[in-house]
């Protein structure tokens, strides 16, 4: 028997707000937090590359080609991670490379998610008229792995930064369409959609205001994974000589020239790849953390 007389009157439940609940779940995942910090570092590098990088990324220091990193024999303080085969400072190139990779990844995700989601919603809301046609086209696009599809597009359009963006975007578009269509079709069958429709909501409103918010959880997770795979594909295209072209400092492009220097100057090979690994790892960890924190919560928000 308790005697807490204060607690009698209004026992208002203290439910935490959705945002707070999300942050509680997300931050409980230590890995996701670390990943968020790493991503933050990458973002800062991308945004403020001009201020952070010690040197110009394309400037060639002919006197100091293939200098080892500063902690090894022959290393110099000014070139912290060493220089490449043309005497360019690797650290600066990596920092500017962050800008390129993040930019391409962001743009390609946007360019594939927005049309992909719209197409998916259209396919879900008009299954007879548009649905079959759209999904057939997507099936064809999905018959090729996204990297190979991107390679095709780059073959047609030619190499370069913008074309890389477009190629990767086209490569990932079908997965957003499929995902949105599946999620939307699941929601359309539910009663709250019927209720909205009966209350007089038009199709456009139904699509974007009623149904879409409830499909967001898997979409956000997919977008995060799409972001990281875009970075990998950018690097792969750069490595194959089909993507961003030298002298633009892209991590994959840096690796393709470095192949010949495995024995002589291993840091030229190690550093760019390590950067890709760490960035992609961080984003994937964040994506995992997002998925764990979002899934049950957003479903309740319906």
């Amino acid at each position, binding site marked *: *028997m*308790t*005697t*807490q*007389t204060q*607690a*009698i009157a209004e*026992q*208002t*439940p*203290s*439910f935490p707000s959705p945002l707070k609940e999300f942050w509680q779940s997300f931050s409980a995942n230590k890995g996701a937090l670390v990943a968020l910090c790493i991503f933050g570092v990458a973002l800062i590098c991308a945004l403020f590359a001009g201020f952070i990088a010690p040197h110009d990324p394309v400037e060639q220091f002919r006197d100091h080609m293939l200098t080892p990193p500063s902690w090894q024999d022959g290393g110099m303080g000014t070139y912290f991670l060493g220089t490449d085969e043309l005497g360019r400072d690797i650290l600066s190139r990596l920092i500017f490379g962050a800008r390129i990779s993040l930019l391409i990844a962001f743009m390609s995700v946007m360019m594939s998610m927005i049309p992909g989601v719209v197409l998916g919603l259209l396919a879900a809301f008009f299954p007879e008229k548009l649905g079959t046609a759209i999904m057939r086209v997507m099936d064809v696009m999905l018959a090729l792995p996204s990297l190979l599809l991107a390679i095709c597009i780059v073959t047609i359009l030619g190499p370069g930064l913008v074309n890389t963006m477009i190629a990767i975007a086209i490569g990932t578009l079908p997965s957003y369409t499929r995902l949105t269509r599946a999620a939307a079709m699941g929601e359309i069958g539910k009663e709250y959609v019927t209720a909205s429709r009966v209350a007089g909501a038009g199709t456009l409103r139904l699509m974007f205001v009623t149904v879409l918010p409830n499909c967001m959880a898997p979409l956000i997770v997919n977008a995060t994974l799409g972001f990281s795979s875009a970075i990998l594909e950018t690097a792969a295209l750069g490595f194959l000589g089909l993507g961003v072209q030298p002298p633009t400092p892209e991590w994959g492009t840096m690796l393709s020239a470095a192949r010949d220097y495995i024995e002589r100057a291993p840091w030229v090979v190690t550093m760019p790849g390590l950067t890709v690994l760490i960035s992609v790892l961080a984003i994937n960890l964040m994506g995992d953390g997002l998925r764990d924190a979002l899934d049950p919560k957003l479903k309740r928000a319906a």
Partner: protein
Amino acid sequence: MSLLSIKNLRVEFGSKAHPFAAVDGLDFQIDRGELVGIVGESGSGKSVTMMALMGLIDAPGRVTADELMFDGHDLLKLNDKQRRAIVGKDIAMIFQDALTSLNPSYTVGYQIMESLKVHLGLRGAALEKRALELLEMVEIPDAKNRLHTYPHQMSGGMNQRVMIAMAISCEPKLLIADEPTTALDVTIQAQIMDLLGRLQREHNMGLIMITHDLAVVAEMARRVCVMYAGQVVEEQAVPAIFNTPHHPYTQALLDAIPEHNKGASRLSALPGIVPGHYDRPVGCLLSPRCRFVQDRCRTERPPLAGTDGRVRCFFPLNEEGKPAHV
């Protein structure tokens, strides 16, 4: 001595700092051959109680009790192997949704024969014979062919019969039925209930019938326990509990039955909702919603007390024939 005796069972979830007691100090008893109903709405803790009994509550859930005795065995002190010798053999449980409770990748016959193999060591012809007997006992037609069908090829009612066959296969002393008919059509419901009643009488099993439907227990049970928010709030014999309920919650359940509301313009219903994790009252758990609430109810938790029936209320109804406060 009772077949099953539970004293002060408590099942907690969540962090140790802010635990959520799904079952909060439950006492319960049942004898061989008795049919007792446990009634309560969703969230009352009725299923969790039985799962704790069967040892099906996993970490992070924590099960504690002063006493948990079955057929002379102290369930709290059994090791894994000893518990498995009893569970599925002497105590059996059937669940609400029979289709999802059966393994979709194995035939019905395989799943029934599994218990017989593991607990009774039957093999070969004897095994198949017994499986067929069981299917006939639960009134499944064309039993021989049914042995080779998959759960998804049969109706809900059929699947529930299979579940029952599986459960009684080793002649259990106690059968727990957790809302066995909730997912079924009304006509099938009646058939399954009749089947359970008949099997219970024929095999002299103890049967605990968990349901949220009062009509179901009215027909069959000898005694009814009403649960609310993890506690037993009333326990009385049938039909007394329906004629003179002692707890306001029981009264509210009876009032809400559509047949009792003939002529009314609105169905009578208790305002508010069952307390959850964050809004548990300090006093009686029903106090925020009870029509007869008084100051004492809000500050103290009433104990379960009484003679010919037990009730958890400071001001029980229908004693000496009138409510305490109108």
